[in-house]
């Protein structure tokens, strides 16, 4: 082990020196090459386009094409089953990536491609814990939060997960993602289960039943969404009074577009997005090159200055400042801002990756009214 770790810094140095050369070499030889990235659309994808895709194309000449992806392992499984997929990279939620890795749907990624921080800090110290995995490289911290339409509540404003389930004091439609993710955590949180015990309780039949019963209370008020930008739309066009959604999208709608949306940070669900390479792609090497490029501290910071998702590298977080276009300070909107962390729930990605089927069955049963 020792000789290897001793050699690592030398490898980094080599990487830094050779990397630009590799990129420009690629530029000449592999013109009109295209990488296909499955990602989440909307303002999030726009931020990726500006921070990663366009600079990558400028540096290498490789075009990035995107296809829409709404999370989960199923979509990837279906792509691979069709035999002929053109997906090269997927921007996956960490728990999905973990499950997909175990199913053998992903290529291994050489951690040696990651570049050290500008001050020389090696990646394994710079990235947050658990970010570097054989199948994925975690890049951002995002949060699923509850937000509400300010116009719907002129008087007392909702400010807790409990209020989301309280139709009496806070009437109006509730927009929820049509997926067995987050629902049950919030259901139990609203019953004042402490966050430390959420996944222990959700591991029991009783815990899931309890969540079902709590959700029954708002069943008739639910509007389902699937695409990340839909939840923002449902709030802005007044269809829903409260909605769950990704904090970055709500930030974008509020700060950039002036939508009357407020975020309730209580019970925010912290999750992580990771870059993965689809098993069997013929451009695995190029995909790794892209990951190395997209996880450079400067590029990660550039994305965080466009949308309020926290970068998974310390050196990148230090570079987060004002919004590139609007000049709004970005740090208070990050899920990891200290004032938001007091009641945050960090999603147990191990639990998620092992309970895919259980959650899907539970959700189906609940949708059918048990």
């Amino acid at each position, binding site marked *: 082990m020792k000789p290897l770790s001793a050699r690592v810094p030398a490898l980094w140095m080599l990487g830094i020196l050779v990397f630009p050369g590799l990129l420009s070499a690629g530029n000449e030889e592999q013109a009109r090459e295209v990488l296909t990235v499955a990602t989440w659309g909307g303002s999030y994808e726009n931020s990726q386009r500006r921070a990663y895709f366009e600079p990558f194309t400028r540096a290498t000449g490789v075009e990035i094409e995107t296809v829409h992806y709404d999370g989960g392992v199923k979509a990837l499984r279906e792509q691979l089953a069709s035999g002929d997929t053109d997906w090269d990279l997927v921007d996956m939620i960490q728990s999905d990536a973990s499950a997909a890795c175990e199913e053998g749907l992903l290529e291994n990624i050489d951690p040696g491609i990651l570049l050290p921080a500008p001050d020389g800090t090696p990646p394994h110290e710079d990235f947050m814990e658990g970010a570097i995995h054989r199948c994925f490289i975690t890049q951002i911290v995002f949060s699923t939060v509850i937000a509400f339409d300010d116009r719907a509540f002129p008087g007392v404003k909702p400010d807790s997960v409990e209020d989301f389930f309280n139709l009496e004091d806070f009437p109006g439609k509730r927009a929820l993602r049509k997926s067995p993710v987050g629902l049950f955590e919030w259901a139990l949180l609203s*019953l*004042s*289960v*402490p966050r*430390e*015990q959420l*996944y*222990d*309780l*959700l*591991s*029991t039949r*009783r*815990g899931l039943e*309890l969540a079902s*019963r709590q959700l029954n209370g708002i069943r008739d008020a639910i509007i389902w969404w699937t695409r990340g930008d839909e939840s923002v739309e449902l709030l802005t066009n007044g269809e829903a009074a409260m909605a769950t959604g990704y904090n970055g999208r709500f930030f974008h709608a509020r700060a950039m577009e002036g939508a009357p949306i407020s975020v309730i940070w209580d019970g925010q669900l912290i999750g992580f997005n990771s870059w993965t390479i689809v098993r069997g792609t013929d451009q695995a090497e190029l995909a790794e090159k892209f990951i190395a490029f997209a996880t450079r501290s400067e590029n990660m910071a550039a994305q965080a200055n466009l949308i309020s998702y926290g970068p998974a590298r310390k050196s990148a977080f230090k570079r987060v400042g004002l919004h590139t276009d609007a000049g709004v300070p970005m740090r208070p909107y990050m899920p990891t801002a200290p004032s938001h962390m007091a009641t945050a729930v960090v999603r147990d990605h*191990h*639990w998620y990756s*092992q*309970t895919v*089927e*259980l959650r899907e069955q539970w959700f189906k049963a609940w949708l059918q009214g048990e």
Partner: protein
Amino acid sequence: MERKGIAQTVYQIIAVTLVAIVVGGAASLAAIGFVEAVHFLNERLLISPYARVLAEDRPMLVASATLLVPAAGGLVVGLVVHFLVREKRGLAPPDAILAAQTSAPAPGLLSGLASTFAALVSLGSGASVGQYGPLVYLGAMFGNMVGRLRLNLRYQRSIAIACGVAAAISTAFNAPIAGLVFAHEVILRHYSLRAFAPVTVAAATGYIIANVIFDRPALFLVSFDRVEHSYEFVFFALEGVLCAGLAWVFMRLLRLSTNTARRYIGLPWARPAIAGLLLGLVALWIPEVLGIGQETLRFATIEGAFGIGELGLIIVAKLVLTALCVGFGFVGGVFSPALLIGILFGAFYGMVLPYIAPVPHSGLVVYAICGMMALASSVIGAPLTTILIVFELTRSYDLTIAAMVSVVFANLISYRVIGRSLFDLQLRARGFDLSLGRDKAILGNRRIRDYLSTEYTAASEMDTVGDVRQRLVNDNRAEAMVLDHQGILLGVIRLQGIVNRPAGTPAMAAAIGLFTRFEEATSVWQSMELLRGFLGEAVPLVSAEGKLLGVVPEEAVIRAYLEIVHDLREEENEAA
């Protein structure tokens, strides 16, 4: 002189503080290690719901683990206890009490470690037993080890044991004040400043290690605003009374299960395995009975988590299976199961109450907590400790006062019906009866043999009255012991009985056959009882075969009593 006195005081304070910190730190770290190890085993052996749900896709694996893990664990426990623990049973708080109260030798280190290992396997494999009993013993074990060092401190052993116990409880519950009070209330049974100061230091050490260094999560977290209606305190009191009844049922079941195991299963080491198998069978149907039941504990405070019938079923199952596991020899305590059964019963009571007394009340949480503490305090005989645990864990005054009412009523009843606690019942079965206070228990534990004198006048069955009379005059005594050639005591001759007899009469004719005698096992307390109405000089003490070992003068019995009581008063009243 003055200077020497100061130096001695400084030495005492430093040494006592160091003892407290060392014992407290060791007990606390061991407690954390123990709890972590149980957690690890529960995960690996598919006992915890979290581990079971992760193996959802292999239902056969989960089912066979449910069935086999407790049985296999039971087998290991049975073998370890039978072959490695000298006492042939799990060591528990009663052993700690005994070690702190008497100077009798405590169980050895090997026994202690083997018993702790057996407790770890019991809890790890999902047996329905508690973790606090083994933790208390572990703390006492460290205390006992330090207690044996030659530090020249007074009451060193009992104080060091109390320190270990206080730190273990303080760590396990994250409740230093409860740990401090537990050590006094259950282990020491007095509140002298000499013990109070080091035990406080140990409890604080445990708290610092648990909370500041390791940041342990709390046992339970509930939110409760306040008791809405004053009449509810009547309900709390009634709940306490019902919990005392439940405690009585629990103790009866425990005795029944212990006796059943002894009567029907000849191989002692096979008993836990059989209990484990039965537990596994029930767990296939009601998984809540496995292990400590952290999740079930939490659900009990959530409105709507259980139906009434379901709750009743789980209470009965947990009650019976805990009695089964403990009675059949799994190593573990009864406190955590009592907490769980109590909280479930409290929730049950809170759910049934609206049907019986249809008036508004303040929700499930307060009734659940009251039931939990009332039952647990009756079982372990520690009302103050349990009240403080509620206070330290919830920091809610209202909840604490409600629980206090339940706890007090439960203890009022259970003290009279059952006795102070399960520990005291177990100790009484071993001949150490604390029910009439420490004085009696210790007087009953100390043997009068220690005050034996071999200064007596002997006579043989061949002697004549004249011989004996002369010998008594020579020895300046009024009593002679008549022995046969093997030394067996045949009778006692008193001077007043032979003064007027002819000298040639055989001595045996003048001997009194019915006289007060002590045996080897006679305690100081019994000797005092036996001396009632005694007129002679000294009481003969005989072996089981009837051989005379010596005599105990009346004065020695009084001396024994005074010495012991003086020691106790001194221990209880001395300042640090």
